[in-house]
């Protein structure tokens, strides 16, 4: 089956060890995780995982079902690129002496609409957000001027194009149920 880059979005309880449970499901099938982002979500005490993996639809469908089966996982879904808005952020630490001596470097920053967030006498930190291609393009241009001291980019973060927020609804129903039981 055709392999595609899938984005898996998982919501879980904020409990120690969930990341391990999530990654082990991929390890078991020898699926490499290309990018991973874990952070708090808009819902209190709920964590959100955004992962990108190369897989075929049948396999990723089975993995995601098993992820959702984990007790502490609230919801897991997978998406192709056209079903989500997807961004990355990158930081480029470049040499200030080179920036000053090579006019091409500041042109690159302007042409790519990148943002300078720190300048001191030894280094300058530049920030870029966008798709992987945008970020890598800027990196290559800096690299060709031999000014890069450090480079880092985040994993994908993504929001879905869905109109309904299923999880919020699910938790709302749950809380209403819980309240009723308490009465």
């Amino acid at each position, binding site marked *: 089956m055709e392999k595609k880059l899938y984005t898996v979005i998982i919501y879980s309880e904020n409990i120690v060890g969930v990341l391990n449970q999530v990654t082990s499901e991929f390890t078991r099938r020898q699926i490499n995780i290309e990018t991973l982002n874990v952070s708090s979500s808009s819902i209190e005490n709920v964590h959100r995982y955004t992962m990108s993996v190369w897989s075929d639809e049948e396999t990723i469908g089975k993995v995601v079902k098993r992820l959702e089966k984990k007790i*502490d996982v609230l919801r897991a879904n997978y998406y192709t690129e056209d079903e989500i808005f997807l961004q990355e952020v990158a930081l480029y630490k470049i040499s200030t002496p080179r920036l000053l001596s090579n006019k091409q470097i500041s042109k690159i920053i302007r042409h790519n609409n990148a943002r300078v967030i720190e300048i001191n006498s030894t280094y300058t930190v530049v920030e870029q957000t966008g798709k992987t291609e945008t970020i890598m393009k800027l990196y290559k241009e800096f690299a060709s001027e031999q000014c890069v001291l450090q480079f880092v980019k985040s994993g994908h973060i993504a929001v879905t194009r869905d109109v309904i927020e299923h999880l919020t609804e699910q938790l709302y129903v749950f809380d209403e149920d819980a309240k009723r039981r308490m009465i």
Partner: protein
Amino acid sequence: MNELITGAEALMRSLMNEGVDTIFGYPGGSIMPVFDTLFDHREDFRQVLVRHEQGATHAAQGYARSSGKVGVCIVTSGPGATNTLTGISDAMLDSTPIVVIAGQVASSVLGTDAFQEIDLVGVTQPISKWCYQIRRAEDIAWAVARAFYIARTGRPGPVVLDFTKNAQVSRVAYEPETASCVRSYVPYPKPDKDAIRNAAELISRAQRPFALVGQGVELGKAHEELKAFLEKGNIPAGRTLLGLSALPSDHPLSVGMLGMHGNLSCNMNTNQCDVLIAIGMRFSDRVTGDLTRYAKQAKVIHLDVDRAEIDKCVKADIPVIGDCKETLPLLTEYIEEGNHKEWIDSFAEYDAIEYEKVIDKALNTKEGPLKMGEVARRVSEATGNSAVLVTDVGHNQMMSCRYFKFTQPHSVLTSGGLGTMGYGLPAAVGATIAVPHRTVCVFMGDGGFQMNIQELGTIMEQRLPVKMILLNNSYLGNVRQWQEMFFDHRYSFTPMQNPDYNMIAQAYGIPSRLVKERSELDGAIHEMLDTPGAFLLHVVVEKEENVMPMVPPGMSITEMVLE
């Protein structure tokens, strides 16, 4: 303000709150405060000292599977905990509700390679339904309530509680807790009425419907609902290994066992039916054989409480997700009364072939060494087909499951998914405690018996009436059969020199009998059943008997080898 009690005492009260009556345990350094507290609760729990922690988990499994309640074991950290891993994995694959409580070093020294410290949560995450480390006495009531709720609901499974020593000894004001929901966990998905209507329509129109009955029916206690469904639709049903007692063996619609060593009729007709109705079964590769040639002609309806089972191995045309105790009656309501006499009779044609080529020889041979099948059938008949069958793994398992008959639910305890040799003896320990009113017969080979033979000590000490049938062929029989068939008769690591098992039984004060001749068999079986308490029936059987029929590995279920 409530009185302050220790964490260990809070554990006791939490266990009592869950209705626990039996604990299978083995003490050690990191769990000593709990065992010290157990000393004050000798009236509240039956306390069973096993002889190895693996035995504790299998005993808890046997207890759970025969009674439908949650089995409990308590062990120490480090090696005590790692010894439970096989049992936890077994319970995970076979959906058995057990709670394993293991000691852990104090929170202050976690991660320092303290004596007998292992990362139990890290190790058990992939093989348990849920695991949790209790680091504060305040969390005990919550964690225990949640553990039991998760273990027994939905698709049941093993839960591990890793209990740090500081949480056992610190004091807490205990308030009992009960878990009735976990917001991230949906144990019983609501049945989809449309799916049920569609499934019912498909079944009503079917000419050759075939039901595959699995352990889900036993776990969902849906035995009567299953019968009503099959009888209204007039649908023949094959059973999986773990679903053997979900439907009585002699029910007119019960057509046999599925899978590698199942019945010819069930396997052949799986590839002849037009609608396949899987009920609480997971299409294990031991059932399906080559998936690319499995029931391709049929529309598949899959009833399961676990959404992750749908489309995992066999694509379902109509998934019916939910508890089969709920979904089966809905299906029964919507289906039309069926009449499939001709189709049902087609099973009998295959049965006649299998009887002539296999069963007759297994049961009715008059001369030569005893055969496993005849021993299993005679034992079954001698108990009025009402005993609980516990098996080990291998030939003893396949032969006893093929030839034992079942009249009551919860009557087959066997290691299906993990195929754990050594499961039988401790599982029988658990079963005799859980269902003391029933006769418990455990069939073992000479290999598996020796894998947890130390549990004879538990049987002796607890005076448990385990009826042990040792089928001794001086080989690791199942592997030997594969070596004979697929590895050119090269018997690597399979012949075994055996000890005198009757002397071993004697050493434990357990009466026994050695049977080598056919003429002695019935008398010996009755002696076993009439003798109060435990008994070892040591039967020397044919050395190189093969389990037949067989779907060779990787082959289609229609390519069953008969001899």
